[in-house]
């Protein structure tokens, strides 16, 4: 089954093709096909994971030539290593849950089949991205993910805001992708291949200049910045909440945004070789995480809080991976070849581990939010409250996920977040801010929980109509809640073989329990929850008063630091202005030149027409007239009188005889003939005059 892993992406592709071409009008059938195919993929992924564990994480590469050019060798292939196997599991599980959940959430949607075909295409793209064995392939799937995310975010395109959000997501990620492709071209130019392993071998072997590697790494990271919604390209993700909520769960929990983190993890060798590029990655991650956490504090839209939370958590992962690269580069610089003995950074493990656990609990949070929205038909948490009494399963699972993301022992999030904190422990600034972010995360998540599920209903009418969602929606919630609790246990530090020894970059990382750090992070998380409890459950501290006290900060956070407005002015206005200038240039200068050329052509054609009419046609007609005139003269000979013809023959015969006898006499003969002919002509004319004078009498 491991060798057949290339089939995993093809199952959803098959579903997509079947839905689009055959079952579009059978809506239920379409959704069942899609779910069945992703389930097959899930089972296959599970088998691959088990086999990968059985062979102790030994990677497998299968490759086939795609295009062979003199300088460039492109291949289609799969690279299955523990990271890939884990990602396959995560993507198929979340995609499966989302698709089942959509059965309930999207019921009565007029474009049901289309929705499922998009989901299948999206799953295909993401799985293809994960199994790719070279940068060329990953780029193709990368763009496919971008396309399908555009389709899904703008799925309700009748809404202007939704179609705008789709465009924004597409264009913003495209900016990052530009950097990505530049990075790929640099790699191609200096390493001469797109294949991961060949590039990494050349990089670690020192065949490629370290500066080039750092540059390529930063450019490749641009792609991840776009896709994973990192600062400064994070603006598209909150707007993308316009898509259907299950789509948000799929795109913003496990797949599209995970692609960026996956790319950084996959290309870790590029970053690990250079402290500069790793530091860039880490700082971008930290900035993103901090900004997004701050913005999440004050949002009132349930999905937007989750969106900023996602951005923040992704920043966490990117930061952890970046710090790993920094540590790696420093260790190599200090200890030389056998640095591995002195090098113990959990960053890579922390980033990828958090990617997995986050996928589960964030998908759960989004789906739970969808369940709430489904019940009360609003996104605004100020109109909610007390929903726990109506929606038991939703509220319990939502609380589990919130505890998990806040990092409460012993849920999944605790173990992965703890490792991220441990990674940052070696960097004081990072350490402090990481704890601050953890505190804010716990706070805003429980602000959300308390405002939504506890207290008195703030909108009685909505509350009265609220109801628990159907089983198709609650079952995926329970599955994900189970994973949100237990998925993290694969990384228990007391296990001999755990996540850290399975998914690693350079050497297997042997985690060890650091009880002090665990205590610190738990205390931070609990204090965040406690503050939220005091403010939003007990009402002991008035949020409005605090908002008033730090008015400036509150407004900055509430307005998302005015990023959208700044981009509106700097990017959108500038682009439109440039476009206006270019349009003017086009309309006036280019069109003017074109029209001038056209005018000249017309005039020149007129001149040539005159030439044609009078010179060329004149010549042709002139020849015609000359011929006609000649014919008028020559036809006089055709008198129709046989006697005249005979006369000419006999005169010629006599002439020949005279010529033979006396050539000199021939001229006299000719002259004589001419005289006779003239005389004859004259008499003829006189005769015709006479005929005119006396009218001819017929009969």
């Amino acid at each position: 089954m491991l060798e057949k892993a290339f089939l995993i992406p093809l199952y959803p592709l098959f579903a997509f093709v079947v839905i689009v071409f055959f079952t579009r009008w059978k809506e239920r059938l379409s959704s069942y096909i899609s779910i069945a195919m992703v389930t097959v993929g899930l089972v296959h992924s599970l088998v691959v994971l088990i086999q990968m564990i059985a062979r102790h994480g030994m990677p497998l590469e299968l490759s086939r030539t795609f295009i062979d050019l003199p300088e460039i060798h492109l291949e289609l292939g799969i690279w299955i290593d523990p990271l890939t196997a884990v990602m396959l599991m995560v993507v198929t599980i979340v995609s499966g849950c989302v698709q089942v959940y959509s059965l309930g959430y999207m019921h009565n949607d007029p474009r049901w089949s289309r929705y499922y075909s998009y989901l299948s295409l999206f799953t295909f793209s993401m799985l293809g991205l994960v199994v790719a064995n070279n940068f060329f392939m990953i780029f193709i799937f990368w763009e496919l993910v971008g396309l399908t995310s555009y389709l899904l975010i703008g799925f309700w395109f009748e809404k202007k805001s939704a179609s705008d959000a789709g465009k924004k997501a597409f264009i913003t990620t495209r900016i990052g992708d530009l950097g990505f492709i530049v990075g790929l071209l640099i790699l191609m130019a200096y390493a001469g291949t797109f294949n991961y392993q060949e590039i990494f071998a050349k990089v670690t072997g020192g065949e490629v200049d370290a500066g080039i590697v750092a540059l390529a790494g930063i450019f490749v990271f641009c792609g991840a910045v776009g896709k994973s919604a990192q600062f400064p390209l994070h603006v598209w993700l909150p707007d993308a909440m316009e898509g259907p909520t299950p789509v948000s769960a799929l795109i913003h929990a496990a797949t599209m945004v995970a692609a960026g983190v996956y790319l950084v993890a996959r290309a870790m060798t590029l970053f690990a070789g250079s402290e500069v590029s790793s530091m860039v990655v880490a700082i971008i991650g930290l900035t993103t995480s901090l900004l997004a956490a701050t913005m999440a504090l004050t949002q009132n839209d349930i999905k937007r809080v989750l969106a900023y939370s996602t951005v923040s958590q992704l920043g966490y992962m990117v930061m952890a991976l970046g710090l790993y690269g920094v540590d790696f580069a420093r260790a190599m610089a200090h200890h030389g070849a056998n640095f591995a003995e002195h090098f113990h950074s959990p960053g890579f493990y922390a980033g990828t581990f958090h990617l997995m656990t986050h996928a589960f609990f964030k998908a759960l949070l989004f789906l739970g939010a969808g369940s709430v929205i489904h019940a009360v038909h609003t996104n605004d948490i100020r109109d909610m409250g007390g929903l726990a009494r109506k929606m038991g399963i939703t509220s319990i699972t939502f609380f589990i996920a919130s505890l998990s993301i806040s990092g409460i022992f012993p849920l999944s999030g605790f173990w992965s977040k703890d490792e991220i904190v441990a990674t940052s422990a070696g960097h004081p600034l990072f350490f402090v801010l990481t704890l601050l972010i953890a505190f804010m995360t716990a706070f805003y998540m429980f602000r959300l929980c308390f405002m939504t599920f506890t207290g008195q209903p703030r909108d009685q009418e909505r509350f009265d109509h609220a109801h628990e969602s159907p089983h198709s929606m609650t079952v995926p919630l329970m599955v994900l809640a189970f994973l949100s609790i237990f998925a993290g246990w694969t990384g228990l530090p007391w296990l001999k073989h755990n996540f850290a020894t399975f998914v690693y970059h350079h050497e297997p990382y042997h985690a060890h329990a650091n009880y002090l750090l665990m205590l610190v992070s738990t205390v931070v998380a609990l204090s965040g929850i406690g503050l939220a409890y005091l403010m939003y459950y007990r009402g002991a501290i008035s949020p409005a008063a605090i908002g008033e006290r730090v008015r400036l900060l509150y407004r900055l956070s509430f307005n998302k630091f005015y990023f959208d407005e700044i981009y509106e002015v700097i990017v959108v206005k500038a682009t439109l202005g440039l476009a206006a200038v270019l349009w003017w240039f086009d309309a006036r200068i280019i069109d003017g030149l074109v029209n001038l050329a056209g005018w000249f052509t017309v005039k020149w054609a007129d001149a040539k027409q005159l030439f044609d009419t009078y010179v060329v046609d004149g010549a042709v007609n002139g020849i015609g007239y000359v011929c006609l005139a000649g014919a008028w003269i020559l036809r006089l000979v055709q008198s129709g009188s046989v006697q005249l013809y005979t006369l000419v023959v006999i005169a010629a015969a006599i002439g020949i005889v005279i010529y033979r006898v006396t050539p000199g006499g021939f001229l006299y003969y000719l002259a004589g003939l001419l005289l006779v002919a003239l005389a004859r002509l004259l008499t003829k004319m006189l005769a015709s005059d006479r005929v005119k004078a006396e009218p001819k009498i017929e009969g």
Partner: protein
Amino acid sequence: MYQYLALAAILFAIGVFGVLTRRNAIGILMSLELMFNAANINLVAFNKFITPDGLTGQIFAIFVVVVAAAEAVVGLAIVLLLYRNWKGIDVDHINIMKW
């Protein structure tokens, strides 16, 4: 022999003149007969004075007379048709081949 040849030449010239100048189609046919007979006189004269042993020239002359008779028949038939179609046999008026 020259007397015969001179006679033939004069006869031939009269025939040619007749062919070229007569307007009457029958006159032209008669002039043609004169030309035939001029040729016949030549044939007989040559036979008599140059190859007296054979009769080739004389037999040839008889052939000419026969063919001339046939030609006269055809010619007169044409003249008859001309007369029917043009109500006359003046060749000056028969110029449908003009231009």
